[in-house]
């Protein structure tokens, strides 16, 4: 091992003798892998989180029915593995007629006829009389029920499925045999089906106390309403404040206090905004936020716990974010444009409107979208402001009671039954898709802008 450099080394280089360089390099490699591991922890957390949610959104369920569909189809002379989906409307109505009482059948028929050309349960004369009388039932003007509608009735009233066990996607995939055996012992009557908790029905059905039929329609509409109010409130004020601070404010004490204050507000925990909203919007301004100033007092049941209170609360919450982002966007507009504008004898506002704002707009919008995404995911402040715990009616306007998607997720997560975990996971998927869409929009906007500039 005669290194020519070593060999030629003078006394001076020998002072640095010892094999430090390899040791130092090795230590470097070890630390680098340590750092990389930390990064991987972050990535693993994200992956695990997403897998956890997907895992609960799909999987086997054991369904016990009072009349299993196999029995019903057998009664019609079909093989037992025939699906209800394969039956015609006539056959379904026939099934219904066999299984429910005539009284119940009449009630359904008065709500909506089964066929346009004939009646199944009701006496034609009775219905005619009813239609002539003052209290005309809906059947008098509605068209006949669709096939799917009848099938839903059969499922709801005859099959009466109840979920007696659910399994996650991974369990369902890898332990199918075990689950089958276990179910056979615990619920001999039950049928195992693979179920996607996230479905179009789930998105469009209202809240329900039964997880099987519960949906997020009410919450989704509530979220949209609240975010709309938030945006209408905070966008003009936020952008206005940013323009003031960047273009108008002189360097004085008041303006520096305003700026510091905005920066500090951005760090206030969101729950504090909820308490502010509760005290100001819900309680102090109840006359306005309950909408009773419109109806002349009384009438509404929501008191101040309405969409408008929630929207304003979240508006205050994201205001600092919008302001700070908009300030950055405005600051990025080159000063030469302002000078050019001013040198032509334009006023400050003319320059701002014609040159500064159009150029800052993509940045302002990007920041606003991100802030709205934040509002869409906020839960704690709305719990405090008073989101309704159970509400099945779609919100009608700013003065309605409300619930929002994150609140729905929170409530379902807090329930002990497994099925609620499943629908919470499905609701989370919907929320994440919404947020991902917003974020993608923001990123696209940002990229398009930076490419053009």
């Amino acid at each position, binding site marked *: 091992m005669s290194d020519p450099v070593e060999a030629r080394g003078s006394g001076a280089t020998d002072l640095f003798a010892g094999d430090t360089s390899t040791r130092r390099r090795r230590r470097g490699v070890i630390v680098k892998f340590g750092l990389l591991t930390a990064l991987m922890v972050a990535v693993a957390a994200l992956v695990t989180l997403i897998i956890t949610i997907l895992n609960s959104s799909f999987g086997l369920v054991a369904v016990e029915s009072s009349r299993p569909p196999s029995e019903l189809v057998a009664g019609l002379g079909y093989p037992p593995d025939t699906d209800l989906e394969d039956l015609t409307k006539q056959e379904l109505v026939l099934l219904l007629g066999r299984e429910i009482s005539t009284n119940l059948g009449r009630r359904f028929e008065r709500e909506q006829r089964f066929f346009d050309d004939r009646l199944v349960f009701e006496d034609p004369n009775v219905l005619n009389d009813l239609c002539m009388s003052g209290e005309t039932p809906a059947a008098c003007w509605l068209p006949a029920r669709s096939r799917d509608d009848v099938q839903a009735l059969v499922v709801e009233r005859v099959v009466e499925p109840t979920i007696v066990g659910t399994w996650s996607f991974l369990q369902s995939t890898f332990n199918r045999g075990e689950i089958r055996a276990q179910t056979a012992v615990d619920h001999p009557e039950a049928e195992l089906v693979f179920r996607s908790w996230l479905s179009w029905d789930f998105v469009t059905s209202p809240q329900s106390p039964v997880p099987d039929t519960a949906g997020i329609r009410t919450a989704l509409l509530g979220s949209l309403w609240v975010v709309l109010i938030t945006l209408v409130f905070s966008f003009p004020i936020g952008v206005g404040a940013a323009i003031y601070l960047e273009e108008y404010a002189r360097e004085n004490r008041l303006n520096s206090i305003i700026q510091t204050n905005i920066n500090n507000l951005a760090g206030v925990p969101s729950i504090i905004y909820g308490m502010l909203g509760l005290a100001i919007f819900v309680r102090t301004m109840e006359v306005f936020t309950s909408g009773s100033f419109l109806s002349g007092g009384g009438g509404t049941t929501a008191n101040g716990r309405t969409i408008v209170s929630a929207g304003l609360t979240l508006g205050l919450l994201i205001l600092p974010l919008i302001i700070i982002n908009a300030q950055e966007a405005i600051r990025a507009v080159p000063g030469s*444009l302002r*000078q*050019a504008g001013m*040198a*032509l*004898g*334009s*006023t400050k506002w003319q320059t701002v409107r014609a040159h500064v704002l159009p150029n800052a707009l993509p940045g302002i919008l990007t920041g606003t979208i991100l802030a709205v995404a934040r509002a869409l995911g906020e839960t704690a402040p709305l719990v405090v402001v008073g989101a309704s715990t159970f509400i099945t009616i779609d919100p009608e306007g700013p003065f309605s009671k409300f619930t929002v998607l994150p609140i729905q997720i929170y409530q379902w997560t807090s329930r002990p039954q497994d099925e609620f975990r499943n629908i919470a996971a499905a609701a989370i998927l919907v929320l994440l898709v919404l947020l991902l869409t917003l974020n993608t929009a923001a990123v696209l906007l940002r990229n398009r802008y930076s490419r053009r500039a």
Partner: protein
Amino acid sequence: MATNEARSTGMVMTDLTVHTEPRTPVAPGSVAMETENMSSFYGKFRAVKDVNLQFHDRQITALIGPSGCGKSTLLRALNRMNDLVPSARVEGEVRFHGQNIYDEAVDPVELRRRVGMVFQKPNPFPKTIYQNVAWGAKINGFAGVMDELVEHSLRQAALWDEVKDKLNESGYSLSGGQQQRLCIARAIAVKPEIILMDEPTSALDPVATLRIEELIQELKVSYTIIIVTHNMQQAARASDHTVFLNMDRDRAGYVVEAGTTGTLFTKPAKVETEDYITGRFG
């Protein structure tokens, strides 16, 4: 005609069409703007001190001097562009039509409409060529035919032939020299009396520079031009009057000498000036 109308009603002449005919009220060579004991500060720092100058109507005055001597600061004091710098402040007087432009009652917006500016780097708006020219006139309440004004301004800026077929393209699609001429067209579209130019050719190549210099000569028929340049040849070739500024020991700029360009460059009164123009310093 419009002039008479404005006078008879005792109103201020703000009708922009007035100046499309040659202006007559002030005879060429008379004073368009003057400063008296003017000093300009940034915070506590005095950037220019005790300037006493007269700028002659419809002539070209060049400001020369070593870099950092306050040429640009002086120029920006003449239309209150330095108002945009928060700590900037001016003492003394700058008179325009007999009024001190730093008077409390003076509206800087009105002033800048009459005293326009062309900047060192071409800075067209990120809008179409047409909009670049039309915007200033529009916000100043121009009531005439906009297409004519745009064409006229672009012609005066010697740019019309090059852009007449692409008026709806972005101002950024032009070359650097064309952009600068667009900025000049934009400035003259609001019919100023004075145009301040802050090293307008320093970012341009020699060919583009030449075109701008020729253009400036043509513009002098209608406008008073005050131009800052770091190029002595440019000053000698293109201006009627030259002001030489230098920096004092306290880094404040001051006027060493002012006079007709011919005299200043051939028979300077001060040694400092001679040293500078012969390249013995700076």
